[in-house]
């Protein structure tokens, strides 16, 4: 039988139809979509849903913020006939505006449950936070409250949160930040101490609510920001931006190294890093974790066609320490969360 890195046996999942309640812009290019779903099963942080990104049927027009199409239309020089004069980029928008065909995977960014009563059903409010980068996410951005949304979930194996962890170090980069918000909630429920490190290219690409002033004090002398998503659980947050427009200037892994350097051997032994972000960032985090001998779980990203373990598209090379040969594992069903040392990066 396949050795599954993270054991979670409650494999209840299914096809659900939710109703969009909000779909709001959080910061540049990032939206939070909230969907009400009846009887959504138990889930774990790190699990995801496959969402059918059908654009709003009423809004035939493509949203105007199609980035890649903003290059100027080349002048027509050698045509002797008089071409029609479409509005700028009309053709580009029209053709690029086709609906996404396959579903798109998105991490569960949070959930709030209203338990069933004698008269009402169990309703789960699911949050997804996404960055608009292509036709699927563009379609998602056009969804309006009241619209129905089809999702498959909860999919995959989430983070392994065993109670003897302390502290948990949440490391999120870019669109890897959303699952950290859900993870923070579960850590809080389990009374596990945690701190959050969030990295982005620039301040305006951080899909987080950051208030002026300091957040909860960090255990090591690093400036802590008041990030609402983590401060609400009493967790300190540290921000890094590539350009230094907020917090630490540089990569989130630089900040992580500073923190681990200040940790005692005992703290390092008990700490666990939970990481999600772009692959190079996760690879770098895994290297820092190995250097300080700190346990680390990563939530990987691979192109996915099905998300249900049938198409074999989402493979990663898996080689736990001591095994002679790597094997392929499926990110969608064996992961997306793996132990960092088991991945052949």
């Amino acid at each position, binding site marked *: 039988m396949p050795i599954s890195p993270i054991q979670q046996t409650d*494999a209840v999942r299914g096809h659900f139809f939710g109703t969009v309640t909000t779909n709001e812009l959080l910061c540049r290019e990032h939206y939070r979509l909230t969907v009400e779903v009846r009887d959504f099963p138990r889930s774990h942080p790190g699990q995801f849903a496959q969402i059918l990104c059908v654009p709003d049927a009423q809004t035939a027009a493509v949203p105007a913020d199609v980035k890649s199409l903003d290059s100027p239309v080349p002048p027509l020089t050698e045509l002797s006939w008089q071409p029609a004069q479409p509005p700028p980029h009309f053709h580009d928008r029209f053709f690029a505006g*086709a609906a996404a*065909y396959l579903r798109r995977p998105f991490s569960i960014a949070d959930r709030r449950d209203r338990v069933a009563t004698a008269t009402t059903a169990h309703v789960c409010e699911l949050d997804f936070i996404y960055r608009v980068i292509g036709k699927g996410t563009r379609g998602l951005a056009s969804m309006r409250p009241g619209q129905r949304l089809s999702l498959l979930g909860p999919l995959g194996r989430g983070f392994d949160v065993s109670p003897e962890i302390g502290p948990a170090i949440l490391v999120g980069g870019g669109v890897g930040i959303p699952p950290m918000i859900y993870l923070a909630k579960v850590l809080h429920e389990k009374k596990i101490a945690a701190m959050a490190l969030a990295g982005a290219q620039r301040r305006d690409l951080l899909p987080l609510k950051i208030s002026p002033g300091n957040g909860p004090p960090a255990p090591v002398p690093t400036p802590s920001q008041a990030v609402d998503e983590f401060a609400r659980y009493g967790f300190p947050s540290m921000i890094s931006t590539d350009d230094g427009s907020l917090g630490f200037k540089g990569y989130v892994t630089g900040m992580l190294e500073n923190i681990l350097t200040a940790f005692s051997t005992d703290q390092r032994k008990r700490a666990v890093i939970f990481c999600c972000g772009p692959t190079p960032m996760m690879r770098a985090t895994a290297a820092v974790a190995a250097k300080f001998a700190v346990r680390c779980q990563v939530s990987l990203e691979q192109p996915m066609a099905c998300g*249900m373990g049938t198409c*074999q*598209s989402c*493979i990663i090379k898996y080689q736990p320490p001591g095994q002679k040969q790597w094997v392929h594992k499926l990110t969608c069903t064996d992961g997306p969360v793996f132990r960092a040392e088991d991945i052949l990066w």
Partner: protein
Amino acid sequence: MIGWRCQYFTLAWFLGKLPIMSTTIGNLNASVTAPTPDISVQLKNLRMANPVMTASGTCGYADEYANFADLSKLGAFVTKSISRQPRPGNESYRVVETRAGMLNAIGLANIGLERFLAEKVPILEKMGVPVIVNVPGWSMDDYADVAEQLDQQVPVVAGIELNVSCPNVKSGLSFGTDPMRLAELVAHVRRRVTRCTLIVKLSPNVTDIAVTARAAVEAGADCLSLVNTFTAMAVDIEKNRPVLANGTGGLSGPAIKPIAVYMVHRVYSTVAKTHNIPLIGMGGIQTWQDAAEFILAGASAVAVGTALFIDPSIPQQIAEGLRGYLLRKGKSSIREIVGTLAMG
């Protein structure tokens, strides 16, 4: 473009069981009073309660979709290709979405025959629907040895589909494009498969699919399935290289449907009808209307592939839709409409 969108939304609404769907199942309501049309299908020894099956490689080995669809409602279940030895398959990226479809270059990654027999056959046995195992190979004996062992698995395994048409492996699999080699292969396997229905899955990557179809039928195939994916390519214009690690991939999904319908009709009218060989049609099927096109063009059964990634319960919805269609057309059996397309 607009047409494609409309089709897309038909699917989305269909999935959503939104009010629009009442027009599609309106016919079903009537079935309460009128006699229910017979939609069962016989592919040689293989009996299917309805004409809709899964397409190889899009539904795993067994019960991966158990949480998403009632698999006992399938006409038949077709497994991922099972080779003699396990195969790791190609490097990543293995898939990319394209307009109205996708390219895949999985490279026949699979767990191999031994693990399939030990781990998956017991699960398939419980599913209670006929199972067709897809078999790839690199030599004639690769095919024949695996097929012979699977033939011992009757009644759980009811059909063997020879995959002579995967475009994503560099060596071999040219059986599908060379009629002489194909005939030789089918005759070789035929001698060792006596109980299962022997299906040959044709490649569309040929000049005239009727030629390979005829070769397979005359060499002893019980049934033909078509089409496999079309060899295709997507380019990353920033990196100036193909998107897929394999370079090329196979195109599937609604983009290929009209070509697949044509090919089914071509094979039906030139070979299958006269030899009384049933066809399994596939390529971009997402709705019962798509399936009906294939059936009128000459397919006795249909398979759903890529669309399963969007909703694994599509096959059972298609089966119900076909029943409603037959009722509306006043037909008592699906067999009455196979290949009845009026030409000219």
